[in-house]
């Protein structure tokens, strides 16, 4: 069923009785050509592009809970293409271009809103770094503008400009960045994949990978054994656990990241702001809630909830930047488990096991990557060759010395 204004009017006049579920709830088939493990944004997008762009048939997405219950439904919804390094920039630019056409492509309102992201700078050195990054972005075909304090003031007059320790010296504005309604991304891809015949199997946890003579044969699940031609793993924070079923150890640690939403307020933050002197970023959702977050909790975790010290740190940083925040009440906070890689960059690669492919290591930045990660993973699964924009995301890059370390932190995942 296509959605349109005409359809909405028709349904409104006929008591909204014609709407149908957006995807089926099929029984697992004994065999699929492609089994995608993980019904998050990436897994669903992979299935969608496999079916649409590569016209692959017999595809299933296996999700242990319900689709969209993982990080795709827990993130702070920021999309951007403001990376510095060659291995990353073309990929995220490709992703942003896919976002720009996503709703037309999916016939689904994902509320893609290019409201602009402003990274504030507070020192001369930070301004130099922002200028360098901005130039790299422009050279890679993205957009960037360096604002002086007056330029920042025109956009966000309520910021704490003259703080004695962290005065605002300007900011790097990326106008095409913004936010997207995260749940709708999962649902839109699910509906699009389902319409093209993909089976979305929920409550179907993968508990084993059957491998013989170095080749994957299928997966054991809580809904029985499913034989598979190729298996693509896209399980975010659970990457080490699922790849562990194949005996693999990954360059990944799982960490918890928290996010926060205030009560609904009248519109006052038009875009996304990031603090340059502490870990804090903030936007305002279309419902009016301030959506903000900060740093990860720093220790390995699978608990999907964080601790109070980080709550305190985030709120302190927030108050340092936006004093008005102190008047708002916090409504909700939660945590998600992220696959933090050793250089802060992701993997989209084959493994040494025939037919087993891996997409993960997205850290806290995988939401913006959803369309391109799905597209590139589908490309790899179908053609056995990496997509041009994702060729650097290899699992063996630490062995070969080709790390993609945007922050230059070294092999310390909690610092990326």
């Amino acid at each position, binding site marked *: 069923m296509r959605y349109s204004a005409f359809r909405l009017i028709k349904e409104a006049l006929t008591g909204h009785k014609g709407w149908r579920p957006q995807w089926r709830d099929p029984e697992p088939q004994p065999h699929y050509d492609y089994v995608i493990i993980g019904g998050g944004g990436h897994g669903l997008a992979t299935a969608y592009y496999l079916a649409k762009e590569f016209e692959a048939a017999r595809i299933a997405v296996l999700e242990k809970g319900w689709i969209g219950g993982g990080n795709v439904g827990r993130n702070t919804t920021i999309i951007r293409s403001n990376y510095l390094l060659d291995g990353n920039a073309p990929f995220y630019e490709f992703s942003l271009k896919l976002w720009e056409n996503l709703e037309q492509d999916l016939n689904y309102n994902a509320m893609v809103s290019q409201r602009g992201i402003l990274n504030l700078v507070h020192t001369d050195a930070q301004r130099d770094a922002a200028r360098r990054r901005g130039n790299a972005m422009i050279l890679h075909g993205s957009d960037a503008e360096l604002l002086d304090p007056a330029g920042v003031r025109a956009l966000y007059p309520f910021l704490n400009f003259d703080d004695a320790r962290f005065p605002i010296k300007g900011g790097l504005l990326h106008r095409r960045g913004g936010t997207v309604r995260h749940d709708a991304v999962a649902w839109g891809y699910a509906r699009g994949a389902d319409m093209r015949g993909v089976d979305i199997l929920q409550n179907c946890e993968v508990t084993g990978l059957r491998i013989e003579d170095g080749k994957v044969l299928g997966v054991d699940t809580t809904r029985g054994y499913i034989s598979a031609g190729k298996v693509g793993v896209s399980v975010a924070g*659970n990457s*080490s*656990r699922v790849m562990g079923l194949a005996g693999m*150890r*990954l*360059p*990944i*640690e*799982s960490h918890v990241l928290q996010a926060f939403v205030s009560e609904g307020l009248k519109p006052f933050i038009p875009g996304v702001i990031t603090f340059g002197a502490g870990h804090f970023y903030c936007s305002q959702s279309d419902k009016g809630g301030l959506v903000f977050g900060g740093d990860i909790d*720093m*220790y*390995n*975790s*699978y*608990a999907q909830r964080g*601790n109070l*010290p980080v709550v305190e740190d985030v709120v302190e940083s927030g108050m340092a930047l936006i004093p008005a925040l102190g008047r708002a009440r916090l409504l909700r906070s939660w945590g998600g488990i992220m696959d933090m890689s*050793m250089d802060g960059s992701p993997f989209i690669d084959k493994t040494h096991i025939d037919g087993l492919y891996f997409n993960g290591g997205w850290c806290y930045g995988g939401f913006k990557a959803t369309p391109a990660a799905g597209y590139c993973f589908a490309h790899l699964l179908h053609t056995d060759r990496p997509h041009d924009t994702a060729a650097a995301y290899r699992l063996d890059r*630490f*062995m070969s010395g080709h790390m993609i370390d945007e922050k230059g932190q070294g*092999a*310390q*995942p*909690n610092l990326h």
Partner: protein
Amino acid sequence: MIINHPLLGPRDAQEFTYLGDAELLNRPYWLSETALQQFHEYLYLRDNPAGTHRELWFHEQGDRSWLVVTRDTGTHEIQNVELARDVALARRAARTAGETRG
């Protein structure tokens, strides 16, 4: 989280910084034939278990000792705390005992 420091008693986890898996105490031998492979695994690959995890914490805001904390990554419950020095010495003793035997 409260870390029960073996010398100082219960301390807030905020006083510590976190390094990661306590396997980092077992640095490979640099002249080994397979040193390149071993250092790749040592530096970059992790077990990353959901459940019991032995990990290194540094008491930066305190006595600056390194601890090995055994913690459940599913619940954040801390099961055991040792001085990293004791763990490393015990390991060395076990290794030399093994060498004299073998």
